[in-house]
């Protein structure tokens, strides 16, 4: 840990010892905590991977090609988020709004895939009550979906703010915070996709 010394300051405003924006720092700390939140769900999933005593089992029901498509959509939304923030920072409001909308739209599409998947699984006889796979699958992906849904609401709120109050470059931190959160939720999905979907193609270990 290193320290940046701040010289004697006459201003009565708060010190900013590390030179990091307070809210950005808070978001990083929160995301650190959220890692453990998802970590515990992922650990539960992995522990119970081969423990279900009745089907449907993962390899019977998971559709890797369809989920690959939704994964691609979610990851693309991260690119849109980056472009939106960059445009806000440059003061290019119309481009910023377009990419912000694109991010929220792609996120909503991902959620649409998830709703479809849940509905399809329930139809196939897999509910959270069915077996351990159902319980762990729906809670892990469900809480991830809730994070995405919260992010989509946040992004649409920012879009609304940019039309009513405006988000000038000096206030682009408001967008950057949502961006940090959004990228984190995307990265968590990469882990979930690997652990749930890609690992399901392996034969169950004894």
């Amino acid at each position, binding site marked *: *840990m290193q*320290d940046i*010394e*701040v*010289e*004697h*300051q006459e201003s*009565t*405003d*708060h*010190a*900013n*010892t*590390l030179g*990091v924006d*307070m809210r950005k*720092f*808070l978001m990083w*700390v*929160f995301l*650190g*905590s*959220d890692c*453990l*939140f998802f*970590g*515990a*769900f992922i650990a*539960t999933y992995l*522990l*119970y991977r081969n*423990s*279900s*005593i*009745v089907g449907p089992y993962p390899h019977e029901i998971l559709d890797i090609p369809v989920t690959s498509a939704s994964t691609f959509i979610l990851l693309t939304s991260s690119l849109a988020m980056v472009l939106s923030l960059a445009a806000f920072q440059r003061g290019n409001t119309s481009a910023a709004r377009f990419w912000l909308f694109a991010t929220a739209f792609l996120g909503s599409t991902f959620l649409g895939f998830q709703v479809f998947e849940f509905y399809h699984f329930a139809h196939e006889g897999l509910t*959270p*009550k069915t*077996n*351990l796979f*159902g*319980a*762990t699958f729906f*809670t892990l992906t469900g*809480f991830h979906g809730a994070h995405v849904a919260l992010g989509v609401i946040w992004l649409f*709120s920012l879009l609304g703010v940019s039309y009513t109050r405006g988000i000038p470059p000096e206030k682009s931190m408001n967008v950057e915070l949502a961006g940090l959160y959004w990228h984190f939720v995307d990265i968590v999905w990469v882990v979930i996709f690997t652990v749930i979907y890609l690992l399901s193609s392996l034969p169950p270990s004894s």
Partner: protein
Amino acid sequence: MATHSTAIKGVTERATYTGLMGWITTVDHKRIGILYGCTAMFFFLVGGLEATVVRMQLYSPGMDLVSPGMYNSLFTMHALTMIFLAIMPLGAAFFNFIIPLQIGARDVAFPRLNAFSYWVFLFGALILNGGWLFNTLPNVGWFAYAPLTATEYSGAGTDFFICGLQVLGVSSLAAACNFIVTILNMRAPGMTLMRMPVFTWMTLIISLLLVFAFPVLTVGLIELMFMRFYEMPFFNSNQGGDPILWQHLFWIFGHPEVYILILPAMGIISDIIPTFARKPLFGYGFVVGSGVAIAFLSFAVWAHHMFTTGLSALAVSVFSGATMLIAIPTGVKVLNWMATLWGGSLDLRTPMLWSIGFIATFVVGGLSGVMHASPPVDTQQQDTYFIVAHIHYVLFGGSIMGIFAGIYYWFPKVTGRMMNETLGKWHFWLSFIGMNVTFGPMHIVGILGMPRRIYTYPSGMGWDFLNQIETIGVFIIIAGMLFFLQNAFRSWKNGEIAGDDPWDGRTLEWTIPSPPPEYNFATIPVVHSREPLWDSKHPELGDHLPSVTGASDDVDTESIHMPNASYWPAITAIGVGLGAALLMVNPILSISGVIISIVGVYAWSFEPAAPEGH
């Protein structure tokens, strides 16, 4: 001039309230600290009362003061109350009041989030105690092992446990994030990490532990809730689930939690001992480094709570070794406190007595803790009164002693008045003696085989006499508490006026008036050493530059930028509490709580945090 600034266009008046509304809308870290302290002290008395009934029931064999079911509820509620509603929030009270003063800041990084943490804590505490109204208290022990928590074996009390702890988790997480940012980012100029007071260091470490440990409990509680409410098979072995998973999730949280409870006390006495020994803390770097080492190791020792569950031999060996390792940094701290006392000119006033009492009793609890690190010994002691003796030596003899040391030490800063020394010494000696009389014999009855969590026992086991002594000890502790309560109430209004620096202090909180003005420091101090106040009082002792302190009169305090009062944190917290409480009735109803929270968050985001235009 500044008072007429409202006339200028674009400048808004600062939002303030008075009276009860002033407390509800406050974002001042000092008032929030007082709210935390008073609430936690109330629950400390409640938890103490619960323990008193437990001890009276065990006074002699075959007592029937309470029913077995009520007894289960009482020991469960005693533990939950003391851990989550007394010791943790008493720590939070100190963090809130003292940390900004020690780092030379005007407030915490997020004042409204801080208010939110308090209100969520209050509603969590009410939910956890909600079972009193419906006569279904949690009765599964504070660690609520599966499968005892399944709907077949436990009633709605477990739901109060789940929803109460979830809400308290939100509070702890928000507060911990806030304090990490505050401590790392709001230090006065010149206060490098290795110049921070040890209490500030320990608060930083505790906050990091909370941030990383609490989400794991949150996940465990979610899984437990889904198992109970929606029949998901998480810990249900009939469907292949593993009840031991609950124990892992619980203790991955639970063991760091133990350090969350003890580190505030260690930080407090690390500040008190140098003040009353009139010597700098011996081996500051080692005390801080040991705190960091304890934090790291605390995540690698959880399974020593589970040696009897049939873990593999390798796992048992690794966790046993890690547990023994954690005794090293703890021992380093104890030796550093002793070395600070050595050769100091000791001033045995009440805060110092509590600190020395802490060292004495904590070492006893620490040593019995190392014994549990050895799996064969632990297997012998598991679920006996020996464990009860151990945890009370570290939690009462450690955490509570340190917290009372802190109360006597900082009471003058909080209220502007001194506590009475004579009453304080009565309180200390009665507590110290009462504590040892109560918990000391538990070591022996534990080794004699008396199991914990039994509502009564037969005579002729050799336990009768020792149990009677233990119960008498409780009343000695209660007598001490009566001295404390009288002292606190009397001194709050009529104590001797304290002045800025009653103890000849060493750190920044003693450079400002007692009680501190709302803005704390009229000018932000510049720090040139680890003990800025001491060094500026004693320029002959070193070549440090004197610190600039905040007591200057020529500063226009009207112009200091302070945040607006706000009722949205409290309203958002009501939403969180209502949502969690209604979850027990019907998930559909709890949407109303969610809606209140969402409205609160939006209003909070769009209201100005501070008056505009200054």
